[in-house]
């Protein structure tokens, strides 16, 4: 099954082309996702290099969040638009599950984190011995309160390290294993996770909709006028 995979939920986005679980090509998109231009150029480049036509795609994988609201919607809009015109299915996956898969097998628990607003982070617990298993639902935490949820020796990873690494270290008192570098979710792993899900390995999202995890916080807006 040829899969186009889209991961745009964090600062560093990517797209990948897979044949089942094998990566055929992957492109990192560092430019401003608001202009989504890089995504489309990247897809053309990947298809070219793999010698494929867009009509050869059989499924689309999309990382549905949590993460940047705008990023989530850009990825989802691309997935929905392309899947609709090609008449192929979409599989949505959680960006936190993508990170856990990317972390690889590990005897300790995994706790991927992505920054939310202010002192908040998105996180979920996974175990990954022989296969990846979800231990808790994706949710939003205040950094200070995660202590009560994590086992000793839990490995904390993901883009959330960038902003919250220091506070986590202060909280941890050497109990947790905190990644030194932030790891960003990659489209290739989102594609693998989606493929596993399509194959019936039920770990991930059922609905093809954004997975914000957090309800709306209102900001007022004036309709413009000038």
């Amino acid at each position: 099954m040829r899969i186009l995979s889209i991961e745009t939920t964090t600062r560093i986005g990517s797209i990948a082309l897979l044949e089942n679980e094998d990566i055929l090509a992957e492109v990192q998109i560092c430019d401003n996702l608001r202009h989504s231009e890089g995504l489309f150029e990247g897809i053309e480049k990947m298809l070219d290099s793999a010698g494929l036509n867009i009509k050869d795609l059989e499924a689309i994988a999309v990382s549905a969040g949590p993460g940047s609201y705008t990023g989530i919607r850009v990825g989802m809009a691309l997935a929905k638009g392309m899947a609709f015109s090609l008449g192929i299915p979409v599989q949505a996956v959680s960006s936190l599950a993508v990170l856990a898969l990317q972390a690889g097998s590990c005897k300790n628990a995994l706790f991927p984190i992505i920054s939310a607003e202010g002192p908040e982070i998105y996180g979920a617990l996974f175990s990954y011995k022989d296969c990846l298993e979800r231990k808790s639902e994706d949710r939003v935490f205040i950094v200070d309160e995660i202590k009560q949820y994590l086992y000793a020796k839990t490995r904390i990873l993901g883009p959330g390290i960038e902003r919250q690494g220091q506070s986590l270290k202060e909280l941890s008192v050497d109990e947790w294993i905190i990644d030194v570098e932030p790891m960003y979710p990659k489209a290739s792993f989102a594609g693998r996770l989606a493929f596993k899900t399509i194959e019936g390995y039920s770990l991930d999202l059922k609905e093809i909709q954004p997975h914000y995890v957090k309800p709306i916080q209102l900001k007022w807006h004036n309709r413009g006028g000038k």
Partner: protein
Amino acid sequence: MLVLGIETSCDETAAAILDDTGEVLSNVILSQIKLHEKYGGVVPEIACRKHIEVIDLVVEEAVKSAGIDKKDIGLVAVTVGPGLVGALLVGATFARGFAMGLGIPLIGVNHLEGHLFAGQMEHKELRFPYISLIVSGGHTSLVKALGLGHYEVLGRTLDDAAGEAFDKVAKMMDLGYPGGPIIEKMALNGIKKAYKFPRPMINDSSFDFSFSGLKTAVLYQLKGYGGAVAAPLKTDEKTVSDLAASFQEAVVDVLLDKAKKAMKYCGLETLSIGGGVGANGRLREVFSDAAEKEGWKCFLPSRNLCTDNAVMIAGIGRARFMEKKDMLKKIDVNPRLPL
């Protein structure tokens, strides 16, 4: 060539299909009014969330009710600005993904140009050049439209848009949201001259508008500030109706006066109206009467082409594409895209 139009710039998710000749095959609009109602205005994050949730369903419905095969679509036109950036991104990215999947061209469209062009979609006798009055919740502009892509903005609002003033005045009187239809309804039984509200900038030589002061005048009248009246008004139905009618009349008066001045200044005798406030019954009546009496032409698109829709987006995209086929392969959304 079948054209798919997509519009998501504010609080309507819309899609439309035009046939080979530019005739409308379908016009689907999913309004989010109910979602924003309790906040008295458009909440961007709510709008964006709704757009991405329903965009595929809205486009699918447009294709289905047009009775076409989506594979026969030859062009996609999508609004790229002005509007809410997150909302624009949903439509633009969906459209680009859709066009890429089918290997067909995509054209980015200016939302205001859509409103300017809406009159031509319905009235074949409307041709350039003409004066366009674009009047909605986000915009109030007078434009000299010389030809496709040749526009000169003569004037615009310096503060609130006309539709925004309707919303705010309705909110002041606890009438709900959106203000336009509610004020119009209340005004039906009101006396237009009951309150003497200012006609802001009516004697100003520019073609600019200002509605913020008018809104404040309504507030002062209502609350009894500023010595106009000694005490706050009782908000019984009669008073509210009179206030609504007097306010609406002031807005329409200014719009008509400035539009007429713009036609005179440019030596044109044709006016086309676009935008949600163009659906206002009193405005339609006053403009049509004046045109008939004074011997100029006024083109009013039907109400569902005045408010935000994808038909006008498909229409202007089609016209632009037929004029110059190599246009705009890339699309960049721009929340402040000028006309």
